[in-house]
């Protein structure tokens, strides 16, 4: 093999991906050829530089964020088997509960009175309220 053929094998040579015979041939050539040795040295230098690049660390809570996202995703997908009507009802009930929790005594600065709902269509609030009671029983 001439120098050009030898250098083409350097990448595989340094990665230990050549058969023993070819590897031996290259080793022998390198002993008598400073140019090829220099070339190989350049390759090794490249590897050292790439390997020495500063490593990037994930942000501190990365692992826990990924795990939570996976758990959330699996909860959503397990809910996918529930019929649409039931999921809709569940969502509506959650909203109604949130509305009625506003009127609970001692619920903090967000407590409101029913007067604020005077412009709602008549009976709409009582409908939600009684549906909620029905659901609770």
């Amino acid at each position, binding site marked *: 093999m001439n120098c050009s053929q030898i250098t083409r094998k350097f*990448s595989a040579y340094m990665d230990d*991906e050549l058969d023993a015979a070819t590897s031996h041939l290259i080793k022998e050539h390198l002993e008598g050829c400073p140019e090829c040795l220099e070339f190989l040295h350049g390759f090794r*230098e490249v590897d050292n530089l*790439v390997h020495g690049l500063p*490593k990037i660390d*994930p942000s501190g809570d*990365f692992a826990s964020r990924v795990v939570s996202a996976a758990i959330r995703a699996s909860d959503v997908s397990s809910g996918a088997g529930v019929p649409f009507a039931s999921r809709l009802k569940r969502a509506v009930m959650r909203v109604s509960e949130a509305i009625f929790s506003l009127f609970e005594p001692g619920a903090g600065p967000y407590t409101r009175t029913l007067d604020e709902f005077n412009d709602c269509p008549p009976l709409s609030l009582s409908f939600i309220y009684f549906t909620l009671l029905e659901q609770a029983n």
Partner: protein
Amino acid sequence: MVDPDSALIDAIGRGDHEAFESLVKRYQCPLLNFIARTIGDRSMAEDITQEVLLRIYRAAPRFQAKTKVSTWIFHIAYNQALTEIGRRKKRRNLWQALCRSREEAPEELLADPLEPYEQTEEIMAVLGCLPENQKAALLLRINENLSYREIADILEVSVQSVESLLFRARTSLRRQLKKK
């Protein structure tokens, strides 16, 4: 040889969140670094790494042990990185114009050895200009110490192609760095 990760994947497939957490902790750094260097951008790399890990979580029940788990994981990561690179290519920018002119540089094979210089920035800039398959092959070889067979499976190419990709990557890097 038993793949140490296959028990983890089995457990994840059965919905074991702790097993998933172990896998995340084991692979978050290698994946983040591989993705960041392959796409050449740290800011998006964490989001893509998360997407890769979530894909693994969802696909774990269907994992078939035809390859090592790490090969499968890096295969998903490589594909996600390529998707991101494709998106970026559409938005062609100044950097790419710069890189193309670098690639057209004349070949000087047997010349002076590398001189020491501001190496980290240079190597990152030059690495960023390699075609993505060369870059990925080089990163998997140097940082993850993977065999040509494993890299071939990840990139979906032949072992001969891996050898050629690595040779070209090292030759370009050597040549560009030598010029500085």
